[in-house]
Structure formats: structure tokens, C-alpha cells
């Protein structure tokens, strides 16, 4: 990996203005903190087994015990530190807050800049698998003309970015900060991609700063017509006139809305979820239960059927949140947000849509065309879920390559 040209290695820290771009290395977590994490995992006080034989009451006790056992006895955080430090990491102060990001330039001269944003319960860990294929396509089954320079920031309150100490850091402000970040690196115009909060932040950025966004890609498309979204949120029967595909998406949405009460409590009482800052297994449990399909996937992994994600993938992300004590600061974006999650925002730049079947809903092409009048690519996948970059990196990379080809 090359380091970037604009680092502030020549700037002495003493005269730092905050706006320079500083090199960042993930410090080795003190062994005492890792020991303490292990001690807490082993000392977990468990509830009784759920009185059902399915996942209708949340994460089954057996899944959590399998996770805790692996986490405390075999899991190795040091590997993650080494992996993260194999990439060029930086920090710069944007709008008063230190923002951490990974920035990898491609060796290919025609590489285009791409900003990739994670969501909840996520982090930069979700995006690591796509760095190589995007920046070094010839080593990963692609062509030199598919190359991207990749910027992967940590959302404020997540991972190694600073935790806001004042209100206002909702998706809109983050989207403005991302544009500032990209310009500071030297990218006046760039591509952007995201899922979950990253999807919403990317959509908002495209609306707020269309002159800076060459095109955007999303695996969490905001396409649900507002009246359909309202009906689904209220749990109403499907409106008349939906196609079979739209009806299926509607039913998925109704189901999803009934299973995201965590989002409501994070949106109204983030500070009250203190238990997840104090209990690593409690944190892991809430992370596993993002949505039913993700829970099913991850439960299978801890039952020994690895697919897409590994146990280490899952625990790398959770351990990062634990060690940075960002459980509550991570929830707070739900409190800050005022946008509907999946309703169209009026994006008018070129859009690439990846519709995965195990997403909260699989966006039909008809809705996507309406929500994104300049949609240049739409791909309906037959496998993959909410964490596409993490779970199906090849499929997502193919969409990004193929999607943006026409506007390179």
C-alpha cells in the first residue's frame, strides 16, 4: 500500500491546526484491557434459555454461549490490529470532530475516488474485504480500468472517530463532513457508496452536494414510495395495485418494521442502554440481532456453518466497538436522525443499486427507477443480506465496477 501524498508528516504536532491530515496507527490495546474483556466474557451472568425453539424471542441462549466461548478462549484481537495497521489510516478534524479514515490509493493512474460508509452495527471492519479488489482490481479478477482510490471513514461516535460531545451529528452533518474530508484529501468530485446508515448518509450527500458526487452506489436503497412506507410502518395490509415483486418487498418491510424496535429505543433512549457498554456479551447480543435474516446467518456461523461471514469477522466488529467503548455513542445517530430510513430523498445524481434478497427489503426495480431518476445500474441478487460489503464482497465489488463503468 502506498501512503497518501497529503499526509502531514512534515507538520509538527505542536502547531497542529486540527485540519491537517495526521497519520494514524491503531495502538496496541493494553493487554490489561484485553484481559479485562476476557474476564467479563467468562463472568457473564446468563438469563435462562428462551421458552421457544426458534428465534422469535431474540438471540437464542445457545448461540450466545457459543459466541462467548469462542470469544473468550480462541479469539485473537491482535490479528485485527495488525490487519488494520496494514492499511494507511489517518485522522483529521472536520467540523470540530476528529474523523478517522482509511485511505488507499490505487496504483492505477485512472483510478477514481470512492468514499465507502458503514452503518450500525458496523464499522470500518465491514469494508476491509473490498479494499483490495477496488484498489488493485488486476489482482482480483478485474481490469486496470476498474480501479478506485478508496476512502473508508469511521462515522462520528464509531470506532476511532471522535465521539460528539454536543448534539447535531446526524446523517446530514456527517454527509457535509464527508465532502469536506474528500476535498481536503484532494478529491473535488468523487463516487460514494454505503449500506445501512452509510446508505442513508450517501443518499443525503448526493442530495446536499450533487456537484461533488459523480455518482453513488447503495446496497440499502431509499426507494419506498412514502405512502407505501407509511402503510408498512403502521403494519397495514398491502395497498392495492402492487406488482408481485412490490408486494413481496412490502411484506418484507412490514416484517422489518416489527423487528426494529431496537432502533426506536436507540432513537429515544440511547443513554439508557448502558448495559451494553458494561457487558461485552450484552453488546454482542444486541449486535447480532440487527434483523432476523442477519441473526439467522450469524447464528448458523456460530453453529459451525460458515457462509459469507466468519466468527472472527463478527467478533472483530464487536470487539472494536467494545474496546473503543462506542456502544452508546454508536446508538446516538438514531437519536439524531430525522429521516425515514428507506423513503426516497430526491437524489438526482447517477445511482447504482444493489438489491440483496436478505436486506430489510429487496428494492424492486420499479421503485428504484422512480426514487433515482438517474439510475444507471440495478442488480437484483439472489444471495446476500444487509452487510453486503462484509458478507458478499465479490458481488458488491462487481456492482460497483460495472455500475460506474458508464460514467468513468
Amino acid at each position, binding site marked *: 500500500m502506498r501512503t497518501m501524498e497529503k499526509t502531514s508528516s512534515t507538520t509538527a504536532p505542536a502547531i497542529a491546526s486540527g485540519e491537517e491530515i495526521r497519520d494514524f496507527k491503531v495502538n496496541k490495546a493494553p493487554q490489561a484491557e484485553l484481559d479485562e474483556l476476557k474476564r467479563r466474557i467468562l463472568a457473564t451472568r446468563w438469563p435462562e434459555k428462551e*421458552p421457544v425453539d426458534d428465534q422469535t424471542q431474540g438471540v437464542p441462549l445457545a448461540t450466545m454461549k457459543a459466541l462467548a466461548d469462542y470469544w473468550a478462549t480462541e479469539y485473537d484481537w491482535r490479528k485485527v490490529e495488525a490487519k488494520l495497521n496494514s492499511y494507511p489510516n489517518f485522522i483529521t478534524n472536520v467540523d470540530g470532530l476528529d474523523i478517522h479514515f482509511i485511505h488507499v490509493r490505487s496504483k492505477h493512474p485512472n483510478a477514481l475516488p470512492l468514499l465507502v460508509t458503514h452503518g450500525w452495527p458496523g464499522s470500518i471492519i465491514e469494508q476491509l474485504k473490498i479494499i483490495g479488489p477496488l484498489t488493485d482490481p488486476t489482482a482480483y479478477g478485474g481490469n486496470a480500468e476498474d480501479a478506485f482510490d478508496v476512502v473508508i471513514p469511521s462515522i462520528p461516535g464509531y470506532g476511532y472517530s471522535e465521539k460528539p460531545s454536543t448534539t447535531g451529528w446526524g446523517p446530514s452533518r456527517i454527509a457535509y463532513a464527508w465532502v469536506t474530508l474528500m476535498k481536503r484529501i484532494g478529491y473535488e468530485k468523487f463516487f460514494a457508496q454505503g449500506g445501512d446508515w452509510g446508505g442513508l448518509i450517501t443518499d443525503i450527500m448526493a442530495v446536499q452536494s450533487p456537484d461533488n458526487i459523480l455518482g453513488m452506489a447503495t446496497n440499502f436503497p431509499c426507494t419506498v414510495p412514502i405512502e407505501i412506507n407509511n402503510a408498512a410502518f403502521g403494519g397495514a395490509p398491502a395497498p392495492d395495485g402492487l406488482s408481485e415483486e412490490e408486494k413481496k418487498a412490502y411484506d418484507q418491510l412490514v416484517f422489518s418494521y416489527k423487528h426494529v424496535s431496537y432502533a426506536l429505543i436507540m*432513537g*429515544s433512549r*440511547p*443513554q439508557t442502554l*448502558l*448495559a451494553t457498554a*458494561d457487558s461485552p456479551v450484552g453488546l454482542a447480543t444486541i449486535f447480532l440481532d440487527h434483523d432476523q435474516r442477519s441473526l439467522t446467518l450469524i447464528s448458523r456461523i456460530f453453529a459451525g456453518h460458515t457462509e459469507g461471514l466468519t466468527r472472527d469477522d463478527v467478533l472483530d466488529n464487536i470487539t472494536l466497538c467494545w474496546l473503543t467503548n462506542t456502544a452508546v455513542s454508536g446508538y446516538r445517530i438514531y437519536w439524531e436522525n430525522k429521516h425515514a430510513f428507506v423513503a426516497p430523498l430526491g437524489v438526482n445524481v447517477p445511482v447504482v443499486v444493489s438489491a440483496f434478497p436478505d436486506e430489510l427489503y429487496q428494492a424492486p426495480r420499479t421503485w428504484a427507477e422512480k426514487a433515482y431518476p438517474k439510475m444507471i445500474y440495478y442488480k437484483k441478487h439472489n444471495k446476500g443480506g444487509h452487510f453486503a460489503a462484509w458478507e458478499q464482497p465479490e458481488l458488491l465489488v462487481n456492482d460497483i465496477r460495472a455500475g460506474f463503468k458508464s460514467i468513468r
Partner: protein
Amino acid sequence: MKQAAKAPGRKEVSKESIRTFNNVTVPQAELDDMKRRIAATRFPEKETVNDTSQGVPLATVEAIAHYWGTSYDWRKVETKLNAYPNYITEIDGLDIHFIHVRSKNKNALPIIITHGWPGSIIHQLKLIEPLTIPAAHGGTAADAFDVVIPSIPGYGFSGKPITNGWGPERIARAWVILMKRLGYKKFLAQGGDWGAIITEIMAAQSPNDVLGIHTNMAGAVPPEIDAAAFSGAPAPSGLSAEELEAYERLSFTYKNVYYAYYMGSRPQTLVGLTDSPVGLAVFMMDFEPRYRALISRTFSGIPEGITRDDFLDNATLFWLTNTAVSAARLYWENKVPFFRPKGITIPVAVSVFPDELYEPPRNWAAHAYPNLIYYNKVCKGGHFANWEQPALFTEELRKAFRSLRKQAE
């Protein structure tokens, strides 16, 4: 305290026997472990606001943890609990714990009093003497009750269901069996929160067994108004000023009980609450904004009604019995709208406390309960009025059932 007439000898081991349960003693190692966990609490950063709009403020959490970890004494609670006649009996396959105190007064009426979430028998202790020995507590012998205070399945010292189905209906049926087993063919019932819902369902299911009920959380909201409030719609037209206020309180409530939806859909995902005592206490404290404000004031040195020990007695009982998740499961089991009328035809008494989730207007109550025998707006008190304002609450219960006593004579 007298022992219950039916308290069995040790040799009687029938499942349905009533076993004495009078030695609550937690091993010192468990108390030490709790204290160690409290002291080792890993806190989040301070909230980014200067109010409670993000939940329980960090400073309040730290004050709770400090007092709990250094000054609080659980052994006092054990002494207090063991001073009452406690029993366990198996009903419908589950061990049910209850306190049963008979009055010395012959005309005492039996009453079963049911707690809610985040509650336990701790909420009801202040009522026991005033109800069973009224003459010593500002009442007359004619106001006496025999008191039965059970722990809901999954709460406190009752068994935790290991199969599903233990919703309010089944609990209400179990309560009738319990009262009959104690020798009470007909009885009164009282409750707030889940206790109110269980009590109302019991009144609807078993009208021949229940003489009358008293509720401090009335299910009296007309269904169409409840649906509108739930969806956050603007107030329907044609409401009186009093109804409008109730509507607005209800709308506000529905936006402030997301914890209930969470427990109702993902109780097993709340493992953090069984693993973190301070996390549990904070979650229990954020039941609703007025209660949270009351407890916050208590921990900043302005106690009113509920003391620091009161609050922590209840939280510690949850912790030591490891019932955070089993208690949350009641929300998952429930299929009944909280505040809608449940088709009760027997006599109903309603006390309306100003800081309850909503104040049901008299006309809603009269409509929901065709046999409304008592309705009163009390000057002070909130959702846990029995715990917070026991004197006012006791007086309400005495007045509420006076007319039924006359009929009984």
C-alpha cells in the same frame, strides 16, 4: 404476623400444597459479586444534551452506582421480607410465590394485589400493615383486608416459565386458583401496570369469583381513540378538554415506551441486563419520564415517596433473582392492548393519579366499566402510587370498596 391457616407441615409434599417460604437469604458471595460488578461498571460518555431527552443522564447513573456499591444494604430487605408470611405453591405447573397476611379483624375482605413491570412484591410492602391493621394506620377495623401479594411468573421468587403461554390471561386464571386454594371463594383484586391488566382480565374471565376490582391504571380508552394515539395521529375532534389532555398524555406515552416494544419482540436479546447490575437499574428507572424524573430527584438528594433504598430494593431483587429477561418476557406473551376496555361487568373502582401514564376521564371510565362503583382523582402520585404514596393509596382502597362491604353485610 399470623401464619396462614393452611400453612402445611413439612411432611406434606403434594405439589399443590402451600409451602412456607420464610428464609430469604442470599449467599454473601452473590452480594460480593454484585458489588464487584457495580464497582467495575464501564460507563458510556456523558450524554450530548443537558436534559433527559437521551435517557438517564450519566451523572444520575453514577450516583446510583455509587450509593448501590458503597452504602446500600440488601440484608435489611431480607429481614423485612422474612418478617411477612411468605409461601410458595405450584399452580398450573409453576411455583408461585406470595405473601399472605390475614387481618385480625373478622370482617376483613380478601384482596389479591398484583405488581407490574419493573416491579415486584417490593412495591406492595408499604400497604400490608395499613390494609391488615387499619386501626393502627388511620383507619377503622371496618376497613380491614386479608392481603395476598403474589410474584408474577418470571418475577422475584416465583418460578420462571420454561414454556410459552404465561401471558396475563393465564396468570389471571392462576390467581383465581391461588385464592381458592387459600380458602377465599370470592375476593377483591387490585393492580397497577401489568397488575392492572391481569386484574382486569381476571375480572372479565372470572366474574363469579371476583367481588370487585380496584385499578390505578385503568384500561378505559375507547378503542378508536387508543388506535389514533398509538399511531401518533392528531387528536380526534369532539374531545372535551379533559379527554384531550388524556389523549395527549397517551400519545406521549406511546412515544416513550419503546422499551416495551423491544421487550415484546426481543426479550432474549436483553442479555446485557442480566450481566450488568447498573445497566439493569438504569433500564428499570427509564420506565417513563415522570417516574425517571422522580427517581432522578431522589438520587440528587430530594427524596419524595420513593427512597433510594426503595428503588434499589426492587432493582436488587431483580438482579439477585436474575429475572430481567424472564420478566421482560411478559411483554412478549401479551396480546392485549394495554389501555382498552376489557369487557368487565363486575364492580370496578378507579383511582386516577396525576402522574400516571394518562388520567382517564370519568366518562371514559364509566363507559369502560358499566358497574363503576368508585372514581376519584387523587392529588398526588404516579404510576407506582402504592409504592410512592401508600397513605393516599390505602385511603383509596378503603373508600373504593366501602359500598361493597355494605352490600356484603
